[in-house]
């Protein structure tokens, strides 16, 4: 039986890394991530966690060291935010293309300039072409659960890809909420020992990253695409078996709230999906047939699951907390591109970009936005395809 503790989202990540028995942590401090690594340093110093903390001089080295430790056979972990993540970008690609299981937490924060420490998804969505599996939590409990699950997913031989777990800075990172920690023994049995495809530890001559011919290179990248497809099944299996262990099953790549009889679907990812669910619950009480599909994994993109609930609805409103300048929100773009394989007869789909740079968007905003969208479609009118929702 688990124990419920009041902890911040950042501490939930640290507890998850500790309970997954990570052996190496290499990290560099950055707001709003820092308290994850501070907590892990505490665990290591007190002897509660048998691991090595590598203090590096930059994020570029942080992921390089994490990657190296993982190559050598250690369960390795790091965490960062925003500019730190951008600085390690080269190693982000290296890690996935080398097919090395690694878990990294991203405490999301917007990107400067102007200098800003508040949360949106700009840094996280910037990673979607890297070959990492990208998961995102809605509350501290899910952040804990996802981080633990990330090791299981990453180390599955069908996947062998690194995993990033996202949580918004402050909104989850610095907010205290109850989190149930599973029994350590039960978790050990469930997670099992570290598993990877190969090790480079100096015992036999082995080189990584040698020059490869174009065809060889392309085949390796084609394999990453195949592994992403297989990861969809693995993520669902892990959700299922973790659900048996803890009683918490989220639904795999997406979580649906009230989708089965909905004529309208609202899509969002992250903590504000909670505010969206609260708003939609109120709208349903008022007779609006709206459901919420919450994105838990943005890579691999859950298009099959989304199509199942979107097929037949009248309208879809997609809420993005990041923007691809010159185009639209990234979830919207991926969704519309993905739906093209199923139908030429799309429902009305609107994209709202909001909450950028940490703008506080809450259930009252979502209530207005979703209600307005449904009202327009019901009148037979076409709502704008793209709106940057800004309150000032």
């Amino acid at each position, binding site marked *: 039986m688990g124990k419920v503790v*009041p902890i911040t989202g950042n501490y939930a990540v640290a507890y998850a890394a500790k309970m997954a028995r990570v052996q190496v942590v290499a990290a560099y401090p950055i707001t709003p991530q820092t308290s994850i690594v501070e907590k892990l340093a505490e665990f290591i110093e007190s002897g509660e966690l048998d691991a090595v903390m590598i203090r590096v001089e930059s994020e570029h080295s942080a992921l390089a060291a994490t990657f190296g430790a993982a190559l050598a056979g250690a369960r390795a972990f790091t965490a960062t935010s925003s500019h730190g993540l951008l600085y390690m970008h080269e190693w982000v690609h290296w890690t996935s293309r080398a097919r090395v299981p690694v878990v990294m937490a991203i405490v999301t924060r917007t990107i400067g300039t102007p200098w800003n420490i508040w949360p949106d998804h700009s840094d996280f969505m910037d990673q979607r072409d890297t070959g990492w599996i990208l998961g995102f939590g809605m509350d501290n409990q899910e952040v804990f659960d996802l981080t633990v699950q990330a090791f299981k997913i990453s180390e599955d031989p069908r996947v062998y890809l690194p995993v990033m777990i996202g949580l918004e800075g402050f*909104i989850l990172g610095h907010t*205290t*909420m109850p989190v149930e920690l599973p029994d350590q023994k039960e978790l050990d049995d469930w997670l099992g020992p570290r598993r990877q495809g190969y090790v480079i530890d100096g015992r036999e001559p082995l080189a990584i990253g040698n020059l490869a011919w174009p065809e060889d290179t392309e085949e390796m990248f084609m394999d990453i695409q195949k592994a992403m497809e297989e990861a969809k099944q693995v993520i669902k299996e892990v959700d299922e078996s973790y659900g048996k262990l803890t009683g918490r099953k989220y639904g795999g790549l997406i979580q649906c709230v009230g989708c089965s009889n909905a004529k309208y679907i609202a899509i969002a990812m992250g903590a*504000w999906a*909670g505010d969206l669910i*609260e708003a939609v619950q109120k709208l349903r009480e008022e007779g609006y047939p709206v459901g919420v599909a919450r994105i838990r994994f943005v890579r691999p993109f859950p298009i099959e699951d989304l199509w199942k609930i979107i097929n037949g609805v009248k309208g879809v409103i997609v809420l993005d907390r990041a923007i691809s300048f010159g185009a639209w929100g990234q979830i919207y773009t991926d969704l519309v591109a993905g739906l093209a394989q199923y139908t030429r007869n799309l429902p009305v789909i609107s994209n709202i970009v909001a909450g950028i740079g940490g703008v506080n968007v809450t259930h009252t905003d979502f209530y207005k936005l979703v209600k307005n969208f449904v009202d327009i479609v019901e009148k037979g009118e076409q709502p704008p395809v793209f709106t940057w929702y800004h309150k000032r």
Partner: protein
Amino acid sequence: MLKEIIFYGRGGQGGVTAANILVSAVLREGLYGQGFPFFGAERRGAPVMAFSRISDKPILRHGMFYDCDVLVVLDPKLVSLGLTKRIEVRDRGVVVVNAPDNMVLEKKAFTLKGSAKFYRVNATRIALEKKLVIAGWPVVNTSMLGAFARATGLVSINSVAEAIKEYFHGPIGETNAEAAVEAYKQTREAEVC
């Protein structure tokens, strides 16, 4: 029953710690809680808010709010400067103020959406009596949690005391818990003019 609470104090007074201890206290009573700082950089001495939510159901909403069901003021100066006007107290709200005995509480220092009950306690004196002083500042956050329990009835003083002891460990936890219990006893409904 979702209640939203703002702890209004000055950076370094422990508003965030109070918000977090409150979460731990309500968990002991089978409730759900959230506690978080104002999102941004820490600023010692500046007026800062900390936030809590308490509910009998899992809390879905996140983020900051500037109107609340309960306003806890850690520093009387924020009232005399009129800064407390920045926060809207909802109808049938509760305001709890750390006030010196001779301080007159005036309604005009607050923004009230409807009726509100006012409570006061001299938490600064309790802190000084208990020798709870850090870096020259009386530590009033734990006393104000005791006052909160008395004023709102949303959580028992026992749970507050237990949560404080767990948070601080050892003798300092005991002293802080005693301060909370003392403040609980001394908190009175206040007259406002």
